[in-house]
């Protein structure tokens, strides 16, 4: 299968603290990968290196056939091809839901307002909130906001999607609506990397689960294998805590 992302001996330091330690990971097109691990293990930093939001010091990151430069000089080339959803939604509060979705397609891809609007409505329907298009983000619930954030990323028609703990800031009762949207998206064949603590989602959707600790990848396995017979002690301890 075609390779979508290739990380080769990736290292990153914040000052003298090493956040990513010789990461090697290859992800194929249409593959769904869930990254889990304790906080501070480097999961978020890892996916932020994939879309060039974070610079790195050594190794190589190859995304959609483009090699990400360490200093981030070609960052926008990568970012227009990679969608990202954040823990805190980060919707633009001064723009309507529709405008949140159309701004980047208009400015970055050069679409007209009508083209971008039609595309945005298509994706807002996909995440099941077309009726909220003219509202401002502050008038929406957390779950709705996060679904708008997914639609906003999709309107750029990215080749892959990154999710950085998309449900961690949500009230428990709206977590499912966001996860359902992500499951729907997974079924369309989108390449996805999700940093999440939602182990149910991982079991249902993931092709592979990556477990990280202290900046290293400790274990990579299929969900069946990962949850039933994790090889490493560290993984077993983590799962005993998470699954309770």
């Amino acid at each position: 299968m075609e390779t979508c992302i290739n990380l080769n001996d990736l290292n990153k330091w914040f000052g003298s603290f090493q956040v990513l330690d010789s990461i090697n990971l290859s992800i194929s097109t249409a593959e769904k990968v869930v990254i889990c691990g304790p906080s501070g293990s480097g999961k978020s930093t890892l996916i932020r290196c994939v879309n060039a939001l974070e610079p790195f010091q050594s190794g190589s990151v190859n995304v959609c056939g483009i090699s990400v430069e360490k200093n981030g000089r070609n960052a926008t080339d990568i970012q227009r091809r990679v969608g990202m959803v954040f823990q805190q939604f980060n919707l633009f509060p001064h723009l309507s839901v529709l405008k949140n979705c159309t701004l980047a397609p208009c400015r970055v891809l050069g679409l007209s307002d009508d083209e971008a609007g039609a595309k945005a409505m298509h994706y807002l329907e996909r995440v099941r909130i077309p009726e909220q298009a003219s509202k401002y983000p502050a008038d929406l619930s957390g779950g709705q906001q996060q679904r708008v954030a997914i639609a906003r990323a999709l309107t750029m028609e990215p080749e892959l999607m990154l999710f950085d703990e998309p449900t961690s800031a949500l009230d428990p009762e709206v977590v499912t609506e966001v996860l359902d949207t992500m499951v729907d998206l997974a079924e369309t064949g989108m390449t996805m990397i999700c940093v999440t603590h939602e182990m149910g989602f991982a079991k249902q959707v993931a092709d592979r689960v990556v477990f990280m600790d202290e900046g290293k990848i400790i274990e990579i396995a299929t969900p069946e294998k990962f949850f039933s017979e994790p090889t490493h002690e560290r993984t077993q301890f983590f799962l005993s805590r998470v699954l309770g």
Partner: protein
Amino acid sequence: MIDLRFYEIWREQIFVEKLINGIGTSILLMILGGIIGFIFGLALATARGSKIRFLRIPSATFIESVRNTPLIVQLFFVCFGLPMIFEYRWPFFASALLALCLNFSAYYAEIIRAGFDNVEYGQSEAARALGLGKNDILAYIVLPQALAKVYPSLVSQFVFLFLTTGIISEVGVEDLTWAGRYIADRNFRDFEVFIVLTIAYALLSVMFRGVLTATGQLVFPWYREK
């Protein structure tokens, strides 16, 4: 008991004309000064927050020079000093307007900069993640939010600056304060004249504040007080 004779102001038609002209001049100066000063201020704030030293240092120097010197000194410098150095002649109104614009811009710049600093980092990060370039992020994401956040401060500053404009009567601009002096010098009713001036300034301030606040609600309908 003090004997107040307000009719001494209305009695002469020329006094009333000077007052009305004065009010008009004050309003015109403030609107022009406010708008031009705001645009300069925006440019200064952007330059001061820039990574390019060639932009950052001159703008910071200008802002601090203005904020740490008296307006009257700046006024004399712009109205008399600059024309001597560069050998040009402008009407006093134009020179005074320039002085006010420069003065306002420095105060606005600092308020706008505070707005820039208060836009959450996640906003520009999300914009970057969508592939937007630096200029688009500034224009479409950071600037509108920064202005909304500091808009009440900008309005207060505008009204405060309006109250300082009386100083331009020192260089012969026939504003409201100048009209008051003109009348008092002729009818010797200083107390009554300055009561009228006080009321006029207060009403104009309230009017400016009201119009600007209503404008803010039109321009930033999405803004919610945290």
